[in-house]
């Protein structure tokens, strides 16, 4: 008997006492993914403000820097942040709004994603600027699905500075909201990276130390107006709408 058949036979045999059928399979259909997807925009109002406030607070609690800006302010904020971090080069994900980097000094080297083909090349770059697909208030988490504007996974891993622009409409209150939004559609599943603060370790005497292998500096720019961000989120017609 093959290993597969033997293991399956053993586990079937092991639970011969169980008579209940398996839970009804909640098949992830494209329909379901669509309904629970980006269209479920958050309502405006005090609850909304509290969610954004909590998100900012929890991101900062993990010693990431949180900045708030309007859509028009993004280029200036990015220029300030990167200058403050003495960034001399950055890798630019395909699909990132080009206007966002318009205020950077010419001296800052911009490496397009398509040209950053080796790991060593990324290791020589100081920073990366991306968007995110969802932010989670209760945990201070940003999630990247590495679609347009977010780059391949290694882009946000190898450089030491990660600046992430999060649209406030993409911030959800709970982990469950994010999981629902991120449900992979069959046949076109995306890789996901959940990020809560900069790289950290508690391996030495359980004392938290920020900065091991991932970016040691994480800056989250929370944008309070719809931006010209590209990617799947663009299908959302209204800000704070959907209700």
């Amino acid at each position, binding site marked *: 008997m093959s290993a597969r058949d033997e293991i399956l036979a053993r586990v079937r*045999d092991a639970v011969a006492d169980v008579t209940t059928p398996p839970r009804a399979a909640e098949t992830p259909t494209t329909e379901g993914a669509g309904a629970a997807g980006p269209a479920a925009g958050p309502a405006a109002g005090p609850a909304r403000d509290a969610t954004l406030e909590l998100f900012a607070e929890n991101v900062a609690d993990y010693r990431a820097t949180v900045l708030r800006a309007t859509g028009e302010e993004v280029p200036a904020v990015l220029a300030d942040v990167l200058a403050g971090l003495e960034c001399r080069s950055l890798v630019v994900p395909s699909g990132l709004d080009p206007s966002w980097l318009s205020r950077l000094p010419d001296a800052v080297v911009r490496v397009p994603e398509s040209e950053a083909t080796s790991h060593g090349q990324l290791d020589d770059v100081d920073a990366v600027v991306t968007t995110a697909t969802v932010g989670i208030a209760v945990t201070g988490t940003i999630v990247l699905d590495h679609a347009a504007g977010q780059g391949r996974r290694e882009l946000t891993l190898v450089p030491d500075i990660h600046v992430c622009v999060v649209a406030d409409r993409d911030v959800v209150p709970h982990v469950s909201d994010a999981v629902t939004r991120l449900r992979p559609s069959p046949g076109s599943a995306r*890789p996901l990276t959940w990020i809560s603060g900069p790289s950290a370790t508690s391996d*030495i005497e359980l004392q938290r130390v920020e900065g091991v292998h991932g970016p040691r500096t994480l800056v989250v720019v929370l944008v309070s107006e719809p931006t010209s961000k590209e990617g799947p989120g663009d299908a959302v017609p209204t800000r704070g709408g959907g209700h």
Partner: protein
Amino acid sequence: MSPDPAHDRTVGRGAGQAAYPPVQVTSPTFVGMPKFPKAARAELANAQQRRNLRHATHTIRDKRAHVVAEVDDWEALRVKGADAKDEALTHLADYLERLEESLTANGAVVHWARDAAEANRIVVDIVRAKEVDEVVKVKSMVTQEIELNEALEAAGVSAWETDLAELIVQLGHDRPSHILVPAIHRNRKEIRDIFLREMGAVGRPAPDDLTDDPARLAEAARLHLREKFLRAKVGISGANFAVADSGTLVVVESEGNGRMCLTLPETLISVVGIEKVLPTWDDLTTMLQLLPRSSTGERMNPYTTMWTGVHEGDGPQEVHVVLLDNGRSHVLADRVGRQALRCIRCSACLNVCPVYERTGGHAYGSVYPGPIGAVLNPQLRGTTSDIDRSLPYASSLCGACFDACPVRINIPELLVELRGKVVEESGPTPESTAMKAAAWVLSDPRRLATAQKAATIAGRLAGGRTIRSVPGLGAWTNARDLPTPPRETFRQWWVREHGNEDA
């Protein structure tokens, strides 16, 4: 307690087990381990380690308590977590088939391994085909369980552990002593010494001016490992969760070493215990709340990577998944014991355990130490060795582990069950003989009266002295004084005072 008698709980098993025994073969590292009390005595003598452990377990305990208290209904979340795992476990074959189907549809290659040797063979064959002499590894309990590093070493392949604590253990030629923080028994000064002494032999040396500041130590690890990450062609991982309906594997980590290993190499091999399956994507909602708060005491761990087979143009383009049994189906066959398979390896039970806090992890004789190890190892490996027979007793049954467990594994219940099993298997002992005799005496008033009368003889012999030890019961009476039997029983007194009218 289960209403089923212990011997009746195990349901039938399939055929063909001659070549692959149902239980796990104890890995070479732990063969011949002395029983727990003996190993613990040696560990307890290490005052530095006891201090390190006390400091670390108390720090993490407080952090966990703080973030668990933030959640409105933690208990409801625990129940949901237990239900999701039970659903997967009680229909494991269905969900494994579903997982295989989803993985394959997304471009991953699925392998099945009955035991450690088979899993190691599969991994070594893949690595050999890639013609590499090194691999980078994400911290993984299951690859420690099967001693994959040793198997790779034997095949001429260096396996670099990349988690900081695993690196400390590997460089220190040491063994892990905790599920989450394998170097918990080491303090910063010891770590500095290990880095200075060992890093140079296997790669970039530690800077000469290295101090014992944790930030400097983490920096040294960053520099040492970076070149290994950037050049590695093959990465090896485990998985925290394997989602059956979507085919998604999940690795939860902190440092970014996991992301490096899961993203940069061309080939990724993930060894996944069959109990890691979750039925549906939505179950991640529960697990991603339970795990970080229970393990590192954070609202969310810094990094979680989720991948679904091969993602074109992003990350490894060759993805292998090895689904491993290695004794798990044997545990599953036990109606009470199977709940141990819910374990998500958070290590909350270790951090609250008064026994673990003092002995540390090495005395448990397995990569799974602490309360969960005490119930998992004797089930996975059977109860034929000294260490596995003694593990169910490595507990005061205080119940703190059950309270802390995010998936409600009733560890004290399992410990008692396993003690019963060990006693049953070990045949008559002086203790069980004495207990049987006591049961015989106590079940009949006349026998009891006779025995009580006999005891007064001992009472008269002892006089007013305290009986401090009884020949033949040395160990038990070492720490206990025996109450001196009375010179007269109650019945005798009654007859003397009132005559025999009511007797």
